[in-house]
């Protein structure tokens, strides 16, 4: 009959209207600044730099190899390598970035820098509340703003961070073994030299 469908429709909307007051399912909105949705582990936005240990400046894993700078498609990374080496968190003398800037107004979050980094030192962050009233200076993130501790990285991407740490540990062990072998070889030759 004419008008039947309208009445059915009105019933549906009325059900939704009153249902929204009693049922959580009918009102799935999360009231954002007060309540937040838990972000998925793979959520990514802009990169950050990982550091080990307590001091962000000393512990930066970055050795300023500039691969990420060269690979970055929109060219949003700017690195200035140090002229002299400095011991990093592992105690090895390394170059370090004097300047490491990422222009977040240019960055497209493609994660290519993360994939090419051989030192597991640049990772993707999930911070998204970066809006600012200064559209020039404040969108350019400097080294200090980019630095995050490896604990933060663990908390952000637990699986991935463990993997990276394992890789780093293997690397470290290899380095130590090599150093030991070198030392042993050095002392061996010294010993050899000694009697001669």
């Amino acid at each position, binding site marked *: 009959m*004419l008008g039947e469908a309208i009445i059915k429709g*009105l019933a549906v*909307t009325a059900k*939704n*209207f009153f249902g*929204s*007051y009693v049922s959580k399912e009918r009102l799935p*909105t999360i009231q954002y600044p007060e309540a937040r949705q838990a972000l998925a582990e793979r959520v990514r936005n802009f990169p950050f730099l990982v550091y080990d240990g307590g001091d962000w400046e000393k512990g930066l894993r970055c050795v300023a190899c500039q691969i990420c700078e060269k690979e970055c498609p929109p060219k949003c990374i700017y690195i200035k390598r140090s002229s002299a080496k400095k011991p990093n968190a592992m105690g090895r003398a390394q170059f370090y970035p004097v300047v490491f800037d990422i222009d977040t107004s240019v960055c497209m979050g493609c994660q290519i820098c993360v994939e090419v980094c051989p030192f597991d030192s640049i990772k993707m962050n999930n911070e998204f509340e970066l809006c600012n009233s200064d559209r020039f200076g404040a969108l350019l993130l400097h080294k200090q703003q980019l630095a995050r501790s490896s604990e933060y990285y663990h908390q952000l991407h637990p699986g991935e961070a463990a993997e990276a740490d394992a890789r780093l540990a293997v690397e470290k062990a290899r380095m130590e073994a090599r150093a030991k072998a070198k030392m042993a070889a050095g002392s061996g030759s010294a010993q050899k030299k000694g009697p001669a």
Partner: protein
Amino acid sequence: MADTLDQLFVSLKHWLVAWFPPAWQPLISVVVIVGAILTVFGSLFSVATVFERKGLGRIQNRYGPNRVGIPFTKISLFGFGQPIADGLKALIKEDFVPHAADQVVHFLAPIAMLAPITLMFAVLPCGRNMTALDLDAGLLYFFAVGAGAELAVFMAGWSSRNKYSLLGAMRGIAQMISYEVPLILSAVAVVMMVGSLSLVKIVEAQAGYSGWLPHWHVFTPWGFAGCLLFLTAAAAESNRSPFDLPEGESEIVAGYFLEYSGFKFAIFFMAEYFGMFAAGGLAATLFFGGYYAPAPWLAWIPTWAWFIAKTMAWIFVLIWIRGTVPRLRQDQLMNFAWKFIVPLALINIVTTAVWHFMRAQPAPARWAVCALLVAGPYVLLGRGLLANKKIEKRTYRLAD
């Protein structure tokens, strides 16, 4: 006590007017009444916009506006600060007039829209002894003044020099004139029964109760049909969904008020809501017992509160319908008006006459005959309209 509360505003006005010299009193009285009407319906308008947005939100499973509250505090007032923010925004926005527009007509159109619609409130009995202008031909005045808004729609559309505005205005004119006919025809039934065009007399005719049932016109077969016809036509008159073709956001951007910004746009918006209030108030007056309480034991609540409640109930129904029914097409709209609503309204006049002349007959016979007269044409016309429709797969002719 109840009577004091009921007559609170009337005595307040008398008290205010008494302060002035006798020669001034008629003028002051008018000013006070006009001020009261504008304040009350203006604030109802601002509240209704929030209710509309929240209601539609809830229907669509989301919160509506619930943020704006008192500035510089964390108090959100459930979003009821929104109209203040909206008003400020409308005031601050640039008032843009297109270069090619007819400046004078473009400027006058919003005023020409709001003025007649505001005048419609003059004859509405907003409570006992609370009619601003108790005309003997109140209903006639109401429709006569309300028809002025159609001119404003066309003024706005034509003067904007914009094809969408013009299309919206054309649609608006076609729709408003078409639906004016059933609107008035369904009101005629009430006039026939009451024997007066005075809205106060129409309300008084609905006083009293048989048992728990009030003597409202809606509780008679002709009144029920008339009420539905009136509400449908009134929704179309006030350009409300599903009859919002003159605005038609998805097709013609905003229709006749497309080229309006800032407060002129707000005035059009206000006029639309005022039109809804006026239509709701008239529907309450004609069919829902005006300012009378729906049950004898509720009579202690002031009459003006009942009038406002009934008007707002109509607004809620409109919001509900807006959240439910999609917009009609122009030809569907016209077919619906001329092939369905107008014939039914004409038949309803006959039903009213039958109801009137069968008053000596026993009630069941009277009810049966009139109910048949209402339901029969509805079903037959509905069937007939659908039967003649050939619903087939639509073929699209694209421009080459």
